[in-house]
């Protein structure tokens, strides 16, 4: 995961200005902001509204609609864990129980010792589930050991960044 930088208003303006000329620039702008800062700070709402000539409610509404956009700085790194049908058929729910039991992490339950696991619905590797996505990489054919290794890796990354 690219290291994110703390909130910087000038940088936010630059990011927005750079992409404002695109047709339907809102999503590219929000993605770019989230990539830089790790989340979409609410201070960008009036900025985007002004640049794109929209109301603040339209900007807020867009941010809140999409699962991907986070509005608070994330603590820890997120593992996206697939719970769609094909992974369920390969035992993803048992692995989710294992996560809760062994690591104390509940799916979508927020940060736990620097580890966050979010539900995903399909990562497109349905013949090799259960699957997870972490740090832009996909991990397939997960079993308890594989998941433990992934959790260890995600937790250690937090320590390294701190």
């Amino acid at each position, binding site marked *: 995961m690219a290291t994110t930088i703390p909130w910087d208003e000038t940088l936010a303006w630059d990011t927005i200005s750079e992409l404002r000329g695109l047709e339907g620039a809102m999503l*590219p702008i929000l993605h770019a902001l989230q990539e830089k800062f790790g989340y979409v700070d609410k201070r960008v709402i009036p900025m985007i509204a002004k640049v794109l000539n929209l109301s603040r409610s339209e900007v807020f509404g867009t941010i809140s609609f999409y699962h991907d956009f986070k509005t608070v700085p994330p603590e820890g790194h997120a593992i996206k864990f697939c719970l769609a049908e094909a992974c369920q058929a390969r035992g993803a729910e048992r692995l989710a129980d294992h996560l809760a039991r062994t690591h104390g992490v509940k799916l979508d339950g927020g940060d736990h010792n620097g580890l966050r696991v979010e539900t995903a619905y399909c990562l497109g590797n349905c013949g090799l589930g259960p699957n997870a996505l972490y740090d832009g990489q996909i991990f397939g054919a997960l079993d308890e050991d594989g998941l433990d290794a992934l959790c260890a890796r995600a937790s250690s990354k937090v320590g390294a960044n701190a």
Partner: protein
Amino acid sequence: MTLRIFVPCDASALSVGADAVASALLREAEARGLNVEIIRNGSHGMVWLEPLIEFVTPQGRIGYGPVKAGDVPSLLDANAQAGGDHPLRLGPVLELDWMKRQQRLTFARIGITDPLSLDDYRARDGLKGLQAALSMSPADVVEQVRISGLRGRGGAGFPAGIKWKTVHDAESDKKYVVCNADEGDSGTFADRMVFEGDPYMLIEGMAIAGYAVGADKGYIYLRSEYPHAAKAMTSAIRAAEQAGWLGKNAFGAGKHFSLELRIGAGAYICGEETSLLESLEGKRALVRAKPPIPALSGLFGKPTLINNVLSIAAIPFILQHGGQAYADYGMGRSRGTLPFQLGGNIRYGGLVELAFGVTLREIVETWGGGTASGRPVRAVQVGGPLGAYLADKDLDTPLDYEAMAAQQAMLGHGGIVVFDDSVDMAKMARFAFHFCAKESCGKCTPCRIGAVRGEETLDKIIAGENVEKNIALTRDLCELMADGSLCAMGGLTPMPVLSALNRFPEDFKPATAQAAAE
């Protein structure tokens, strides 16, 4: 002499350690003083064999798989570079039964070529479709698409020729072509494989579409869950621009076509075409009421051709060989081939491209080899989370749009998910409502409220509360959602629910009644 080895870069292969295998090959070759070139190809689609690597030998490409990084020294010891014997040796991959019996029109290159090599692409029929298209009038291109009988591969199965003609005939100063790559259905991954395995094919298809309908701008809307696909397509678009297939004068003097990749933000509903258009416009992805249809008033209110990845990816073949060559495959009103995606609890999962008409049983048993767990197949869900659950007795249904509809089922995007006998179908029915509640855009009441109430009602059924009354209530709710929802999300959520109820009624009986019956 340089040793050439193919190691797939498809996400399936990466998910089980293809990068580690590539590194191990480099390391081990260096230690042995061998010159080695690693080529990252797409996946052949036999995911249980991934990472499936191929050594280029005097006898052709010899496959080995599934290879772990730790297998590399023993492979080189066994002289795999000359096709030597090894427990993981598969032989020439294209000669394997699983590959040989497919009818790969869209996936013809995938797994064979380096996805980003323009030379590979050209050497294997790449750009011939576009060249053929540019030598015809746009109306003739549309006519070839009509003749092909191609129907929308996103799930709805709408005849592509009619859609293309509508956009072609629309009068406007500006038109768009949009590719729907928001492949959110569980059990589907063909779009992803196209992006990662043959992105130029999609670019070529988009260019042909732009030329045919008179659009100078194309958008590809890709879901955010596919980072590898995004990376591959970004590189491919850049290379295609440099090569002059895209950009200024792409279709001859004064005829421009530019293509842009846009990334979604984790909303399943964006696979619905009008929701996708709203999202592209930068808004909350609320489904639009139709009419007006996007072909007349789509992106930014302009006539817009919006097609699924697999529809667009079929276009270069159709233009190169003529619509009739494509229509020669298939059955009834389902013409051509469909890349079926086999997943879930399946022994041999992956991608199988076949003409319409093959039965579900052939796919699940012959290609898929039954369940991965070795237990009996109990349920097969076809067509993603909004598709029906079929039971063993239904498996002889031919995979064709009409034959599936006759079973109150649908083909959707060709995803086939297998469950063994440990599945609890009441739980799966509950999950269908849960998923709908989570992913509904919220615009129409039947979907927004119905999904929540449905989940609650299934909870009661599972808990054994007033089971018969609650089943009747669920059926009533399903009728309302199917009739009253604005789009397929609410309208088709009843399909998995009712198919589970109708085909697996024993899973909905309260535990006490079940015990008494036994």
